[in-house]
């Protein structure tokens, strides 16, 4: 359970869990495009998209961010009093088409401590793979979360 001063459960590393499913719809694509100011015809113009590489409109990969999923495995972290989303990698693997049914599976990829200018921090890296109804991966995200102690009124 313990590693250095950080308290977490390393046994969750690599354990995969399904955290949700959703459908890709034309309406969802249009709503997402409006939210991010998307005008790329791959996502917004059926006529141009039909003549493009995918034969029709596809979903912008970031649409996976617009749907809340479950949390997945709990590393039972007891460290610091502040947590924030420090970074993310999004890999685009294959197109998502309207009518696709997407399943998201997550695992904790890494848990590690690091000491920086502001003191000790604990990093948790969670990788989510989104797959279509054929089981083919379409998008993968790796989110890094940082936990650290924040002194009120301090840095």
């Amino acid at each position, binding site marked *: 359970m313990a590693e250095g001063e950080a308290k977490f459960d390393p046994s969750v590393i690599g354990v995969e869990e399904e955290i949700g499913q959703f459908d890709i719809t034309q309406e969802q694509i249009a*709503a997402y495009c409006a939210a991010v100011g998307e005008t790329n015809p791959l996502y917004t113009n059926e006529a141009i998209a039909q003549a493009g590489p995918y034969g029709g409109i596809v979903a912008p990969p970031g649409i996976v961010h617009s749907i809340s999923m479950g949390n997945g495995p709990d590393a039972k972290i007891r460290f610091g009093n502040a947590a924030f989303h420090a970074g993310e990698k999004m890999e685009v693997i294959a197109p998502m088409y309207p009518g696709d049914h997407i399943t998201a599976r997550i695992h904790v990829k890494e848990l590690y401590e690091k000491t920086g200018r502001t003191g000790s921090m604990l990093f948790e890296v969670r990788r989510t793979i989104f797959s279509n109804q054929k089981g083919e991966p379409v998008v993968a995200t790796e989110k890094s979360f940082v936990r650290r102690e924040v002194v009120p009124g301090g840095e």
Partner: protein
Amino acid sequence: MVSSQVEQRYAEDVGPGDEFEETFTLSTDHVQRFLAMPGNRLGSSQNRFNSEDAARRDGLPGPIVPGVLSLDVAYRVIGDFVGVWGKVRSLEVSFRRSVFHNDTLTSKILITDSGEDGERHWFKADVFLENERGERPLQGVADFELPARG
């Protein structure tokens, strides 16, 4: 400096050292639309993303833009850059500072490397968002491909 827009760029037209940028405002309307999307629970309660009061309780001067929305906007700019026939392979970013509602952001793309792998013409680029205060709330790297005129 070339302004980015949805047009088709080709591998022959782009090389290391080239810079591109696009300026836009990430408005409260954008954030509200994102939070209101079906299945998005981020907007289901008063929080730092949609409420002045909740943001102030968290020590912020005003509501902020969810990090994933900033990432998605950066992706949009790169997607516009590669056009219909290009492919964005990945975008990896660090969130350095908060983006506030109605911040005017300039997205900058600096091409750092390129090459060919068979018929694939790949590129790497540094990407960042800069606000009107000169801060860079998001920065990272992108991998993408462009078609050849061929």
